[in-house]
Structures are given as structure tokens and as C-alpha cells.
């Protein structure tokens, strides 16, 4: 609703109410931010001694150390990224007889660029902006060309071969220990010329353009190490809990940035506070419909980061975070962080757990995939009862 992506640049004014046209006024609902304890500090002054969070802090730092890629991994990725960048740069500067497509620009994006790579996931991302339109043939041609050139380079250095496989986002160049995803996109002005059956998907293309904006924003705003630490921890946490899996890296980036930096003092918060805050915000409905959520700094005004999730996913993510919040509050952070496997790898957010005699139970989904969510249906059996049971 507030996403605004659909109405950029068409001459339609961004704001509503153009001289009161009687219909089709773009509705810009200014949504409220959720309750945020850090920002609501004056209304809720602390009246208890602050909890001893040393254990949590230690656990967070330990887990982060585990999640950081090793120097070997880093150098493997660096090596292939550098070569690939060279190859692509050559194609930009001097395409020679390469005619499958014309390249405008090559940029590194994603976790590699941001410095938030995780151990064991040696995949870097490079976005290639084509001057020509990204047809599947062009991608294939580029893939073959890159493969060929890269193999030449690798042979020259006596390294193993690389292979390249195409997919709907571009292609992936895989070497022995690392891989690079080459994400194909095109110039902005070409976007509306895309046709679904000829070219790569519009959404994919524009998401790649967005990835460029994201890494740029990240470089400028989120270079604080605490943010990167929190991003790794959150990404790892999200990957291990089914409900939080749909959260995109970009949402996690924004969330981590918000949790660390957005406080009255504008100073980075300690990692334990920020971690609790992120869970608390998610549980408090930051990513639920009707909430202002986190404004996406890389999209048009009023667009919210979490609207990329569908409703069921939003509900599920919130419910999972709510359960995890209560688990962490009971001292179960080791399980949430993944330092300790829960009962043989079960998802702790879906299990009933007992902590010092306090029972923590997961929550039922609130979202029903019915055409009329407002209409009378079994309001008694899962409305209040769920609340009671939970």
C-alpha cells in the first residue's frame, strides 16, 4: 500500500490530494512506528536493577566468532572475485568481438561487499549492468564468455578450472572453494522494455539494481562493526528458524542498523542490548501489516522494507520472533543463537519448553488465508482461546 514503488516517475505526484481530485487519489497512509522500548525510555524509566547480560554478551561474541569466515575462505573468495572482476572489466572496456551483450558497469554487491559474509558460505555477488536488454541468450553468451576468459586466467596461474551455470538471476561461476554469483541487470531506463518471455524476470532485474543501491547505502551508513556483528548473528538465527527464514538479507541489514544506531544518543548500542531489541521489535510487530516498519532508504518514499514478505510469512516471522523472545528472556539464548543444538536440531521456536518451571509455548498463526479476513468466522475458537492457551 505504501510501497510507492509502482508510482515513481509517471508524472503522478507522490503526495495525495492533488487539488482534491474526486477519485483515485493515491493514498499515503502515514503509519505509526511500533513501540520501541529504547525510544520509549523516558516513559518507562528503569526501576529494577539492569539484568546481568554478561552471559548473553559472551554467547553472542562466541557465536559471532564461529560465524566469521576463516582467512582461507576469505582469500579464496577474494581470489575468484578479483579475477572475475578483471574479466568483466575487460568486457566493459574492450568487448572486442563479444557481441552477445554490451556491459555498462560491474559492481560488487551483497554480503561480500558489505563484509558480512558468513563462514561456510563462500558465495560473493557481482551485479553486471547490461547496456543491452538482458535476454536469456545474452546471459548465456556472457556466461560462456566469462567462463572461457576466466579459465584462461586460471590456467595462467595454474589454478583449477571454474564452471559456470546459468539460472534465472544470471549465472554462477563456481571454483573449487568459492563461487561468485553474477547477477544480471540492465540500465534503469530499460526496465520497462522488459518482456517476460524474452528477458529475465522484471522483479529479478530490479532486485539486482536494488542490490547496488543497498550496498551503496550500507557503505555509507552501516559500516559500524557492531552492525556487521549483529547482521551475522541475525542471519544465522533467521536461517535456523523456519519462521524467520523469509526475512531477506536486506531486511536484516536494515533491522540491525536500526537496532544498533537508532537510539536517542545516536551511539552504537552494546550488542546484547541490540540483539534483545531486534527480537523485541520483531515480536512487537515491526514487520506486521499496519506498522510503519522500517522505511526502505533505497526505494521511493513511504516504501517499507517488510512488504516484500507475504502476509502469512509476516505472521509467521512475528510469531517465531515472539516465541524466541520469550525463550531468550528465560535464558535460552544459547539455543536461539545456535551455540547449542536444541533436542537434536529441532526448531526451538516450534516446541514447548520449560525453563525453571516456566512453560514457554509457541504461538498459533493469526493469519488465515481466507478471502474475507474480516468476516464472521469461528471467532471464539481461535481468537480468544488461542490467547488463553498461549
Amino acid at each position, binding site marked *: 500500500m505504501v510501497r510507492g514503488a509502482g508510482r515513481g516517475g509517471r508524472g503522478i505526484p507522490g503526495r495525495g490530494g492533488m487539488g482534491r*481530485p474526486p477519485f483515485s487519489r493515491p493514498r499515503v497512509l502515514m503509519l505509526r512506528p511500533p513501540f520501541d522500548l529504547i525510544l520509549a525510555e523516558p516513559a518507562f524509566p528503569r526501576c529494577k536493577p539492569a539484568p546481568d547480560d554478561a552471559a548473553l554478551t559472551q554467547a553472542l561474541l562466541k557465536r559471532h566468532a564461529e560465524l566469521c569466515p576463516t582467512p582461507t575462505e576469505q582469500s579464496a573468495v577474494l581470489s575468484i572475485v578479483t579475477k572475475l572482476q578483471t574479466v568483466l572489466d575487460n568486457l566493459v572496456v574492450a568487448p572486442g568481438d563479444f557481441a552477445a551483450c554490451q556491459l555498462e558497469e560491474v559492481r560488487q554487491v551483497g554480503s561480500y561487499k558489505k563484509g558480512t559474509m558468513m563462514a561456510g558460505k563462500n558465495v560473493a555477488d557481482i551485479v553486471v549492468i547490461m547496456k543491452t536488454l538482458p535476454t536469456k541468450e545474452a546471459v548465456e553468451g556472457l556466461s560462456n564468455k566469462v567462463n572461457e576468459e576466466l579459465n584462461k586466467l586460471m590456467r595462467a596461474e595454474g589454478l583449477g578450472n571454474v564452471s559456470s551455470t546459468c539460472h534465472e538471476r544470471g549465472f554462477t561461476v563456481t571454483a573449487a572453494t568459492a563461487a561468485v554469483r553474477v547477477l544480471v541487470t540492465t540500465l534503469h531506463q530499460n526496465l520497462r522494455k522488459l518482456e517476460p518471455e524474452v528477458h529475465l524476470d522484471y522483479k529479478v532485474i530490479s532486485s539486482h539494481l536494488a542490490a547496488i543501491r543497498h550496498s551503496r547505502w550500507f557503505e555509507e551508513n552501516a559500516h559500524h562493526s557492531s552492525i556487521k556483528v549483529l547482521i551475522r548473528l541475525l542471519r544465522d538465527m533467521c536461517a535456523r528458524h523456519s519462521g524467520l527464514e523469509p526475512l531477506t538479507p536486506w531486511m536484516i541489514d536494515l533491522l540491525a542498523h536500526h537496532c544498533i544506531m537508532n537510539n536517542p544518543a545516536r551511539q552504537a548500542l552494546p550488542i546484547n542490548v541490540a540483539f534483545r531489541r531486534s527480537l523485541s521489535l520483531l*515480536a512487537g*510487530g515491526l514487520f506486521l501489516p499496519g506498522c510503519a516498519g522500517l522505511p526502505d532508504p533505497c526505494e521511493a518514499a513511504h516504501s517499507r522494507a517488510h512488504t516484500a514478505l507475504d502476509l502469512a510469512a509476516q505472521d509467521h516471522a512475528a510469531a517465531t520472533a515472539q516465541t524466541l523472545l520469550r525463550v531468550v528472556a528465560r535464558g535460552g539464548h544459547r539455543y536461539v543463537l545456535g551455540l547449542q543444538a536444541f533436542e537434536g536440531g529441532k526448531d526451538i521456536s516450534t516446541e514447548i519448553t520449560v525453563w525453571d518451571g516456566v512453560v514457554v509455548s509457541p504461538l498459533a498463526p493469526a493469519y488465515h488465508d481466507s478471502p474475507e479476513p*474480516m468476516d464472521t468466522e469461528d471467532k471464539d475458537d481461535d481468537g480468544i482461546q*488461542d*490467547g*488463553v492457551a*498461549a
Partner: protein
Amino acid sequence: MMAANNYFGFTHGGTQYGAATASAAYGGQTGYAVAPAATAATYGTQRAAATGYDTAYQAAAATQGNLHAAHAHAHAAAAAASAYDASKSAYYQQAAAAYPTAAPPQPQPAYDTTAKPAYSTPATYAQGGARGSGGAKPAYGSVYTATTAAASYPSQPYTAPAAQPAKQTANRGNSAYDTALYNAASMYVAQQKTGGGGSGWKNYNKSGVGATPQRRPKPQPKAQQLHYCDVCRISCAGPQTYKEHLEGQKHKKKEAAVKVAAAGGAAGARACGASALRCELCDVTCTGADAYAAHVRGIKHQKVVKLHTMLGKPIPSTEPTKLTPAKKTVAGAPKVSFVASGGLSTVGASSSVPRPADKEDEKVEEEDEPEVQPVGQDYIEEIRGDDGKALSFNCKLCDCKFNDPNAKEMHMKGRRHRLQYKKKVQPDLEVKVKPSMHQRKLAEAKAQRMLVRDELWARRRMHEAGEDDERAYWEGADWWRGPHHHHHHQGMGMGYGPVGRRPETSDDRHVLAKHAEIYPPEQQLQEIQRAVSHTEKALKSLSDALADHARPKNQAGKAVIKTEDKKDDKPEGKEDGRDNQLFSFVGEGEAAPASGDGAGAGGAGGAPVGGPGVRALKGVMRVGLLAKGLLLRGDRDVRLVVLCHDRPTVTLLKRVANDLPHHLNKVKGPNEDAKYKVELQPAEGAVQVSDGTVNVVVSLTSAVMREPAEGGDIKRDDKDVLPRQKCLDALAALRHAKWFQARAASLQSCVIIIRIMRDLCRRIPNWTPLNPYAMELLVSGVMQSASGALSPGEALRRVMEALAGGLILEHGPGLRDPCEKELVDALGNMPAQKREDLTASAQQFLRQIAFRQINKVLDMEPLPKVKHASGGWKFPRKRRRSNTDADQDTHNGDGKVVKTEEKADVSEINSNAKK
């Protein structure tokens, strides 16, 4: 004429091949002497002649099996060519053979007279004779055309270029023969004309005259031979159609165009297509070499070539192509292979003339070449047959198929393909656009419109911004004016009063509907009001009585007067505690001494009990639900707190309990039938006044109770003094009521939400542990922390957000009690499991609110959507509080606004669902 004809056939042979061949030809003629008999016999009628000829010819050529005109022609030509190529003598035989067949029946004199002038022009002859020198051929061509013009096309403007091209075509073949052939044909036609009247033309066609040098002396050489229009390059079926054609619009247009072109010279032609290739023969302009090649291969061109060949007209080939003329002609007219013999000495010389032009054109073409690089090879897939041979090609960009590799090549260079390529692959590809005047005008108009519109938007935006600010200002004022006047009036006003003209969301409507449902009915409020009021008055009366007892000696009279005064002053003074403030029993006269100890909570401790001028009961105040205006439907219990001067004792309490009924009856109106029952509750430190439906609990307390334990003092009173904790609770209740009135009641939506939450706590076991005061603190804190005013729906959601976010979990900050000096957590005593359950429940509720199931949270039926949207747009505004707001069915047409909000919400849900 026979001589002339002979001359042709003969001279050719003579000059070119020498006398030997010529004689051979004659030999052939004699050899053919058999045939004439047959032919001559059949030549009586025209038709017979034609068929006769055919048969004869078939015999001669030994290949013909087909009577069809075109085929006959083609085969004849082919046969002739092969015959010619193979052996000269055969050719001459053939020619000669034809000759005699025609000759005998023809009326010689007529032929002579007509034919001679045509061919006996000195120039013609001279050229013919000079042909041996090689340079004669072009000239010859022109002569021959001149002849034809004279003979058959008197009306046609025969343009010079037409003659020029003849060179090129002719120089490849044996033009002499060509001419002979042509002449023979025309002669034949002429013969048929003269001999057979009007029907000759058809016969001519049928018999495939083109290759037939069948002569007949014709009586009227001027007669129309072939109805060929040179301008339009078509032939007509008959004189009639020919005439019609000449008069036709199309023809005239073309004629005019030709004239203009001739006047403007070649420049005009070039201008119209700098890179274009032109087929002079058909007068067709092609956009490229490929298109030209295709044209040349095409049936239309073939037809014209055929026609021209048939007529013996030169086949022009000045086309600016790289192809050699010879090749072109081969490609163009393989059947007329008599022109294909390149063995003539004249070729080199004659072709040297057009070279410069060729080169020039080549240059032009080379310049164009880079532009028509074929593009998009990758997008053309070959469809291969079983044997792996490419059967056809499919262009994925343009979605079309070709069977021919040439066509594919052409397609790849073609404009349409390039446009598709530009559109789908390479947006910056240059495709020549030739915008017509019309298109350009359209584009200009569009640009103009865009400009105007942008300007308009910009202007409106500026205007709108100003308007919005203003509106926000007024709305803000409106908004803040609203909340103040409910809830702390008489403790029970209509709480959900003016919500102004804010748009209301579905959540708001639900919350307000629920609020209306739980709000106490008027009758209940009145009952409570009456009971409380009577109790207060009775307490006052009691206090007065006690005061009288306390100073019986000197101040009794004064006190009585005071009491009377007070009763008289009723209308103006305070009659009970309905403003929810302390209802002081102290009269005006005693104000000075009393206010010092009484009204001030931290009053002077240690004042002697029953000291002079001091009342034991200083005042009464409403506390709890009553004071805060939080009564709900069904609430029967209200609390009053009586402040005593000193520690309230059991004795005092008993006294109050005993005396109160009397005073109650006193203050009760005569016609009020309420029966009050007073009950002593020493354990609670209170008396309960009950009229059957309403219970008023009157607690006794004193500010002195807060004093730190004073050792002996307390011990001394220990037995008699009311339970300390109860007294402190009553004091706290006093402070809470004051805090509430000062802080919470002024927050927008706060009282509504606290009522809703009270209802929630009553209904749901998980919420019961949340004590009312803590809940009030929580809600007010949540409201206070919001940056702006909240609508009821938003407020409820925010409360849930706070709880769901773990506000009351162990690591949270706790709820600080503002009514205590020390840091006290208002929720400090809540067990962990309760906190956990409460949080979990709030989390569930939050998600239900988010997914439009607020009715489940509130335990109510979902409200129907508001139906009409008219006027929704009348309130465009900044929506600070977007999607929560509830309808309140009674209010000034706000429902209208709601609908649009509703719609927006639905669309949000939908759009989210899509994402």
C-alpha cells in the same frame, strides 16, 4: 521485305560467322523445303497457322510438347539458345526453317512496301553493316528500338534511358540475334494483324511468338503490334484495354512522374533513395541489396523480363549493385539464354561504358554496408530435419519463420528485425527511422502536452503543500481540544465523546463499539452517583457531629452555626465529592486551623488527638474506579477514603459505623426510598455502605500512617489502630486517583483503552494478574511514549506491541510507580509464569489485530464494513494515524470517511498478499 528479312538473318550469319554459315543456313532452308508444304497448306487460316507453326517448331526444336504460350515461349527460347550454342548451323537452320514457312503465303507486295521504309533507313543499314567493328551494337540497339517505335508504338514517348539499358543487356548476348528475333516477332504479329483481323493478338500470345521468327508479309505495318505501355511496363490484352490504360489515372500519374524525373535528372531519383537500389526494368526501388536480389528473383520482375524479352526490348540493368550484369541477367532471366552468351567481342567494350556508374553506386553501397550489419544471429534458431539439414529458421525476436537462408539473412538486416532487436535486446541500436511528417507532428504535440502537465502538477503541488500544512494545524488543534473534557468531569461522563472528524479505521470502529458496549448504562451511573453522594453527605454530617462533640464547651454554638451555614450555602459550596477532588469537611471558619493539618497530606504529625479546633474526620475523597472514571457495566463497588486527623482507630471506625445510618437518613431526600445498610469491616479498616445494588466502601486512613514507626507511639496504639497496610493502601489509592487525573486522563484514547483493558483483564485469566494500577501505568506510559495522539485502535495496538515486545518480562525495566518516592516496580510481585503467559497472549493479540481480527481480541462480532464512500475524499489530510480508528455509528457522518479507509486497508491486505 523478304529481302529485308533475309538480310537480317543473313547478315547476321554473314558478318559474324562468315559466308560458310550463311550458306549453311540456306542449306538449311532447302532442307526445310519439305516443311513449307505442310505449313503452307495449313496456313490458310490464322489459327491453323499458329498450330501449324507450333507443330513445325516442335519438330524443329524437338523439345516442345506444350502448347501453352508461356511455356512455348520459354522452351522455344531455351531450345533456340541451346541450338545456337551447340551449333551455329542448327540455329540458322532453324531460323531459315521458320522463314520459309512464313514466307510463301504472304502477300509479298504489301510486305515490301511497309517493311522497307522501316528498315531501309540509311542509318540502320549502315550500322548493321558496321557491326563487325564491335561498336555497332549499341547503335544497332537504338536503331532497332527506333524501328519498333515507328512500327508499333507510335503514341508512346520512348525515352532515351530505355535505349541505354539495352546496351547492357545486349552486350552480353547476341544483340543482333536479339533484334532479329524481336523483329521477327513483331513481324509475325503484324502479319497476324493484317491477315486475321482483330483476333491476331491472342493468337500471338498463344502461339508464343517470342521465339518464332515466323514471317508473313503484312499489309499494314503501322498496325498495333503489342499493347505494351512503356511507362508502366505492362502489356495490355488488347487495344481497347490499352487505350483505357493510357487514359487511366495510374498511367497518367506515372507518366508525369517520369517526366519530372527526366527533367530533374537522375538527382531526383537518387535523392529519393540514397542507399536504395533501383530496378530500372520494373521501376521499383529496393531498400537494399538483398531486397533488390529478392526482387530480381521475384515473379513480378520475371514477368517484366519475360515481357521485355518477348518484345525484344532491352533489359536494363543499371542497378547499382555489385553483381556483374551478366550474373544478374542470368539470375533474372535464365530462360532467355540467348542473351547469355558472353563470347562476343563487343562485351568488353560495351560494358566499359556503364562502369563508372557502377562504381559510384558501389561506393554508396559500401557506405551503407556497416549500417546493415545483420544483428541478432543468436536469436535465430535453426529447425533441422532428421538429416540435420536446416529446414527452416525461426526468429525468436520477431516470431517469424523462413525456409530460405537468404530470407533469413535479409530478415536479419531488415528494419523490422532491427526494431525488434532494438526493442528487446539492445536499446541503443540505431535503426533508421523515417518519421513521416505526421509522426513528427504527433511527437511534438506529445512533448507539448507533457510540458504543460508537468507545470500544472508542479503548481498544484505547491498549492497543496500549503493547504496541507494549514489543515494539519487546524486538525491538530481540533484533536487536542477533543480529549480533555471527558472522564474527569463527574467521574462518569460519556467517555467516548468527540472524536472529531478523524477518519476511522476498522480497528477504531471496533474498539469504540466495544467501548460503548462495556460502558456502564446511565441508570447504573445514576445509582452509583446517588449512593456515593449520600454517603459523602452523611460523612460530612457525621464529621460535623464529631467535631461538635470534640469541643462541646466553648465552640459548640459556633459549630452549630457553622453547620447551619453550610447547609444554607449548599447551592454555591461543594455538596459532595463529584469533582473527584478531596471533599473537605472543614468549614470556612475553621479553615485556618484545619487546613494546616488536614488537607495537606504530609500534615503535622503528633498533634494531640481531639485537640481543640481539629476535626477527627477531615475529608472524604473518591478513589479507584469511581475517581478515575473507569467504571464498567456491572461494576457495583466503589471506594471512598476518609482522611482522619490522626491514626484511625477501631473505636473511631465503630463510631462511624454506628452513626452513619442516622446521618444517611438525614441527608436522604424525603421521597428517596433507598435503604442504606452500613456494615463494619474492621479487618479492612472500612465500613461498607450498601443500598442493595451499590456498595460504597469507606476506608479510614490518615497521612500520619506514613510516618516512620515511632516506636512507643505505635506500640501504644497498636491494639486500637486500624491495620497499617490497609491504611497505606487507602492512601496510595488517593495518590493513584490524583496521578490518574493529572496524567493519564489527559492522554488521548488513554481512558478508553484502560477501560478496554479492564474488560480484557476481567475476561481473560491470563490477564487477571495484571493489577489495575500497573495496567494504568502501562497504558499511560505507552500512550505517552507515542510521538503523537493515537486513535483508539492504534492505541490498543500499541499497548499490545509493548507487551509483546517483552516490556514486562524479567529483563525489562519494570513499571515505575510515580506515586512512590522510592523506585518501586508496580508489577514487582508478578510471578514469572504469569508474565510469560501475559506476554504470549499479548503477542497473539497483536498479530490478530494486525491481521484484522481485532474483534477476536475484543470478543465481539466483527462490525460490518461501512458501505458508502461518498465524500471520503473531502478530508484529504496527512494521515498520521492511518489504519486504526473505529466507527462510532452515532457521530456526525464520520462513517462516510471510514469506508475509504476500509478500502485502503483491504487493498493493502490484497497487495500484501500479492507480494
